[in-house]
């Protein structure tokens, strides 16, 4: 019996490896290639935010020759969420086809260097009350830059420990969005699921969720005061490794850029072009048909 059990185990292992390789979705190499394919005409400038302070951090401004949206991407608002930091760093090398891509990969530099969620004044993403001054030096410095660019789109990259709507205290595998982004939020979440979530990890499918306005988060303030279309992306560390979380963060950045016209790329599932969203929403009041 032992030999047979061992044989069964080995067979299971081999079958697992083969089945996993054969049936896993392949990400979205075409989209990421389109994002990385920089035309020579894209200019990149860097600026130091909060210069000569402990918070000093680099902002990258990538400008395409054609007019288009200004998209701001933030990583490292929570310093221990390495997926967003790495994906944002990657995006500083991308080539938008239109408009401006503005990236701050290490927003809370102190937290990033300490590999901790919060920095000197705690959790940065609670320092942006709508209609009021930001409540810390770092938050004021970041918000100055946001006001200066007056972005059309804001994307903030995060990771949670569990799954939104599944683990009660966690918010992972969700794309939170401002009230004006129902169709885009649903389409981008579906696109991410199609790109990155195999059918045999069903609880990891992405959920779009309208965010309550008026909270103290950076993306909420940008939506409330600057009329930006704002997203907060959460992947999860639940059963996913760093490489997978980072790839999902790259994909959402590219999808958001494409959905708002910064990239000439049609995902074919309703984001930037002609396709219909794959499935109708059960929770979304407008059925995902209007922007």
């Amino acid at each position: 019996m032992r030999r047979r059990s061992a044989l069964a185990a080995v067979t299971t292992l081999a079958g697992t490896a083969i089945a996993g390789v054969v049936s896993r979705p392949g990400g979205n190499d075409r989209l990421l290639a389109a994002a990385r394919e920089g035309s020579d005409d894209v200019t990149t400038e860097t600026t130091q935010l909060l210069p000569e302070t402990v918070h000093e951090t680099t902002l990258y401004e990538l400008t395409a020759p054609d007019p288009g949206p200004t998209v701001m991407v933030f990583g490292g608002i929570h310093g221990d969420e390495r997926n967003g930091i790495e994906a944002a760093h990657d995006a500083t090398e991308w080539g938008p086809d239109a408009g401006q891509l503005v990236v701050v990969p290490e927003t809370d530099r102190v937290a990033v260097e300490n590999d901790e969620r919060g920095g000197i004044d705690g959790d940065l993403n609670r320092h942006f009350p709508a209609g009021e001054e930001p409540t810390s030096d770092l938050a004021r410095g970041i918000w100055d830059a946001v006001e200066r660019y007056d972005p059309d789109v804001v994307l903030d990259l995060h990771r949670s420990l569990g799954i939104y709507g599944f683990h009660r205290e966690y918010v992972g595998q969700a794309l939170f969005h401002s009230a004006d982004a129902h169709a885009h939020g649903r389409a981008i979440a579906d696109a991410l699921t199609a790109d990155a979530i195999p059918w045999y990890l069903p609880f990891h499918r992405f959920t779009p969720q309208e965010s309550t306005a008026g909270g103290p988060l950076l993306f909420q303030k940008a939506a409330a005061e600057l009329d930006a279309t704002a997203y907060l992306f959460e992947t999860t560390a639940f059963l996913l490794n760093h490489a997978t979380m980072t790839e999902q963060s790259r994909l959402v950045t590219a999808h958001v850029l494409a959905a708002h016209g910064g990239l000439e790329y049609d995902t074919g599932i309703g984001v930037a072009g002609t396709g219909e969203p794959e499935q109708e929403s059960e929770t979304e009041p407008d059925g995902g048909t209007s922007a």
Partner: protein
Amino acid sequence: MSGDSPGPESGRGSEPSIGHAGGLEIGRRALTSPATVATAIVLIVPFALGWLRTELFSPLALPGYVIYSIGTAIGNAIAPRFEFWVYWVPFVGGCYGIAVGVGTVYEWVRARRDAGDDGTEANRSHSPPGNSDD
């Protein structure tokens, strides 16, 4: 998956049906039945591979994935703040429980089939056709 299963054979060949003692015997055998071992492997091993390396998740991991995930969802709802690796203990226990259930059915079917055969056959072997000495 069968053949040299351990355990006393005495008194089983002449039983016309599965009595109380036979039930206990089935339960005991189910703890280490080949069907139990196989089921536990199927539930745990593919999922454990994915847990160790995300790239190794596969369709075979789906049963373990569902059991483990639902366990963490229930655990997180009733007792937040536990790290998720803690759920390996109830996960393995739960998978073994399910496997013993499968093993019990397997052993019960086997005992029924043996009891239905004529005495000498039943006394000789509990193996399925092809594994016995015929």
